[in-house]
């Protein structure tokens, strides 16, 4: 099986190199046959890469411990589901998986765009080919997952297999952890496609609207997966890591947030380019920056350069990876500078109170947040290089900068969509904002009267209600207008309205999801926690809740031993139920994990952790009361749905396409008649 894997990797190197050479040669010499052959080479890579991934999956499935990767990340008693998921548990396997996804997306991009974008495609193929070459080179020479274990004996090397594997990291044995990495990887990896289109547009000097249309769709796709991956990662940390939170500004979390921030900025600023032909240099730079941040994120996660609980082992491949990032950055910078004359803006900004300027400030804030996160994440590295002392900055740094930036962005979420392009009149401002502002400030007043004194939380709730009101108002106005000239019910009017302009109204739904996430995050300002060492029969109180320890149970499964504290939870004296937070001890990896239990409502989460036993045989129980956490997950789902709405083709756009097709058909018909005549 491993022969198939290694052979496939070798073959990809040859075929991808051919694709790069053939597509560039084809476009230089004007030979479309050669370009088409390069495109077919990408399809061949899809087959080969699938074979390589399949062979590693087979080895994992068979528990073939002769292979180092299988022995290190799997064991005999591991459920089959997790055996397969071990593919992305370690550096070598996950990098193979990464390349596979990259090649699949490259194949899909070529397939979809073959018929159109003829001027761009040779360069798209060449760019993707180079990226494929780099990652496959890593797969084969630097992080080969098909390496066998061997013992040095008198007769030379001998293949050797341990009786059982080391097992999959128990923290990763969770259903979310099985789907979170592939989703996040999809986001990271698929960004290669918009990047390739951008580079192709620059190389071919075809900087019209074609590349913008193609990249906007792909960027939306990547952004969608990146965002979903981030939310799932937070969810996993919350239910599995047992410290009561979902975000800790860990370098690996930051690595996924940075490209998401720049991609979000691009999805907004691209509208200005489509509409007014402005910000061209800016947009090109955003796409390039986003891709480089994706690669940097991969590098940070795997190189162990910034100490993190996530990071894979410190590996010698760090230098090669860093070299790739630097070369790519240098090449892109040269490319943008050399094409500057072609990227001139066609318009100028008119007014501060306009859609354009709100987008401009939105971009500035996204970039500022991204830069702050980047700076904070890499600070240990910089400080060591410059001062010789490794200095890290913790969560206070990230929160201090990003909380106000986040709130300003929330404000713009409400304001931006209601401002007119070019210039808003004072009258329209008053008309659009009077209700949302009144509702927001009213809510703030009520919360203040109820005793809320946390400044940022108050601002956040005022803004959340304000933005929520603007979104509802937009839907309502649009629906009324539609109903008045089409008739029908209110609901059908609203659905119709959304389908006619999916980008606009889907965008509002995404904004609504973001508002809900902010509501949830602001809830964390009021988190409380208690810890107590309890004997059976004793209890502790937190908020309106009382938690009583009934007994301590234990047992064993093939995979792990466990102990549980059985807790009886009641609220205001009323019994809610029994919960059993556990400690698992995984035998293969000799590692304990905590299994938390939660009592979750829309208002708050009661989060129960069994931390361990004291010397006096008391159970240490840790209890958190986290208000409004559930809204973070609900917001994530709403954003997910909103993005799907955006991806549905516009009725209006479809109409245009049909019209254009009809016109072409008519022209052809005329030409034919002309010929006949």
């Amino acid at each position: 099986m491993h022969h198939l894997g290694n052979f496939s990797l070798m073959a990809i190197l040859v075929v991808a190199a051919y694709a790069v050479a053939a597509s560039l040669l084809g476009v230089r010499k004007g030979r479309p046959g050669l370009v088409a052959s390069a495109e077919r080479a990408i399809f061949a890579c899809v087959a080969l890469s699938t074979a390589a991934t399949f062979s590693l999956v087979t080895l994992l499935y068979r528990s073939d411990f002769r292979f180092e990767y299988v022995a290190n990340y799997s064991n005999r008693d591991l459920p089959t589901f997790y055996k397969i998921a071990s593919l992305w548990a370690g550096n070598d396997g996950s990098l193979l998986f990464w390349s596979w996804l990259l090649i699949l997306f490259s194949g899909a991009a070529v397939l979809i765009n073959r018929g159109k974008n003829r001027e761009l495609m040779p360069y798209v193929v060449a760019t993707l080919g180079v990226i494929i070459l780099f990652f496959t080179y890593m797969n084969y020479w630097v992080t080969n997952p098909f390496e066998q274990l061997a013992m040095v004996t008198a007769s030379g090397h001998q293949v050797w297999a341990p009786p059982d594997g080391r097992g999959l990291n128990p923290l990763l044995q969770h259903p979310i952890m099985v789907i979170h990495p592939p989703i996040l990887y999809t986001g990271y990896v698929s960004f290669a496609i918009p990047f390739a289109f951008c580079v192709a547009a620059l190389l071919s000097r075809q900087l019209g609207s074609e590349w913008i249309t193609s990249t906007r769709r792909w960027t939306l796709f990547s952004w969608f997966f990146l965002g979903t991956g981030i939310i799932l990662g937070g969810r996993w940390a919350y239910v599995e890591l047992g410290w009561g939170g979902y975000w800790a500004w860990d370098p690996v979390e930051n690595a996924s947030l940075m490209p998401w921030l720049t991609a979000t900025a691009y999805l907004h600023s691209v509208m200005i380019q489509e509409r007014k032909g402005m910000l061209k240099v800016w947009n090109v730079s955003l796409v390039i920056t986003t891709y480089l941040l994706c690669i940097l994120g991969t590098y940070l996660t795997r190189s162990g350069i910034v100490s993190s609980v996530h990071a894979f082992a410190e590996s010698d491949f760090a230098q090669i990876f860093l070299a790739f990032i630097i070369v790519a950055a240098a090449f892109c910078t040269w490319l943008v500078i050399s094409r500057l004359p072609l990227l001139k803006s066609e318009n100028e900004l008119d007014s501060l109170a306009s859609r354009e300027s709100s987008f401009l400030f939105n971009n500035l804030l996204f970039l500022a947040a991204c830069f702050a996160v980047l700076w904070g994440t890499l600070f240990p590295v910089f400080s060591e290089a410059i001062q010789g002392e490794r200095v890290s900055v913790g969560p206070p740094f990230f929160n201090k900068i990003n909380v106000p930036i986040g709130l300003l962005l929330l404000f713009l979420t409400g304001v931006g969509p209601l401002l007119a392009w070019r210039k808003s009149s004072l009258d329209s401002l008053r008309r659009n904002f009077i209700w949302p502002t009144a509702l927001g400030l009213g809510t703030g007043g009520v919360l203040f009267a109820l005793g809320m004194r946390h400044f940022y939380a108050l601002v956040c709730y005022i803004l959340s209600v304000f933005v929520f009101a603007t979104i509802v108002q937009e839907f309502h106005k649009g629906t009324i207008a539609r109903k008045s000239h089409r008739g029908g019910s209110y609901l059908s009017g609203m659905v119709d309205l959304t389908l006619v302009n999916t980008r606009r109204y889907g965008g509002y739904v995404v904004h609504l999801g973001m508002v809900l996430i902010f509501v949830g995050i602001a809830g964390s300002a009021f988190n409380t926690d208690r810890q107590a060492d309890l004997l059976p029969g004793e209890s502790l109180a937190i908020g309106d809740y009382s938690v009583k320890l009934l007994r301590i149970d234990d047992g064993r499964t093939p995979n792990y031993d466990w102990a549980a504290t059985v807790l009886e939870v009641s609220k205001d004296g009323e019994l809610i139920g029994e919960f059993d937070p556990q400690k698992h001890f995984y035998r293969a990896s000799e590692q304990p994990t905590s299994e938390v239990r939660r009592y979750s409502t829309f208002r708050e989460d009661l989060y129960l952790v069994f931390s361990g036993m004291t010397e006096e045989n008391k159970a240490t129980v840790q209890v958190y009361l986290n208000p409004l956490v559930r809204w973070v997950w609900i917001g994530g789902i709403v954003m997910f749905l909103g993005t799907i709405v955006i991806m549905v083709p516009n009725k209006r756009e479809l109409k245009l396409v049909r019209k254009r097709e009809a016109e072409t058909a008519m022209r052809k018909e005329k030409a034919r008649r002309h010929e006949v005549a």
Partner: protein
Amino acid sequence: MPPKKFKFIAGTFLILGSVLWLAISGFEEGKAYYQTVSELKTMGSRAEGVRLRVGGTVVPGSIVRRDGAVEFQISQDDNVLAVRYVGTDPLPDTLIDESEALAEGEYKDGSFEASMVQAKCASKYEAAYGENTETRPES
């Protein structure tokens, strides 16, 4: 300069300036110096009163829960540091004998009070089978 252009530039500078100010003040609150156990011992009195992140290997059998706090020792070469964890979050499950631990906190009168502890099982997942065996690529 036309007034509307001036407005944009002023707005941009206002935002960037505030971000910079927040960065500097946040940095002072959040910064911590990375030290190994050996480096800490050579710092002497300079180590007192600054926020430190100390890394080392957990001494087998040294983890003890006592009076609501957890105590353990981390070592590097021959130097040992006693750590008293006074934070509120539960300790990570990965904090076990011989794991690589990172304790963040302050050094007071010969003992280290940590408010945050991170740990990873370096011995388990990373050194792996390569230690007493050799690997060779199979092609």
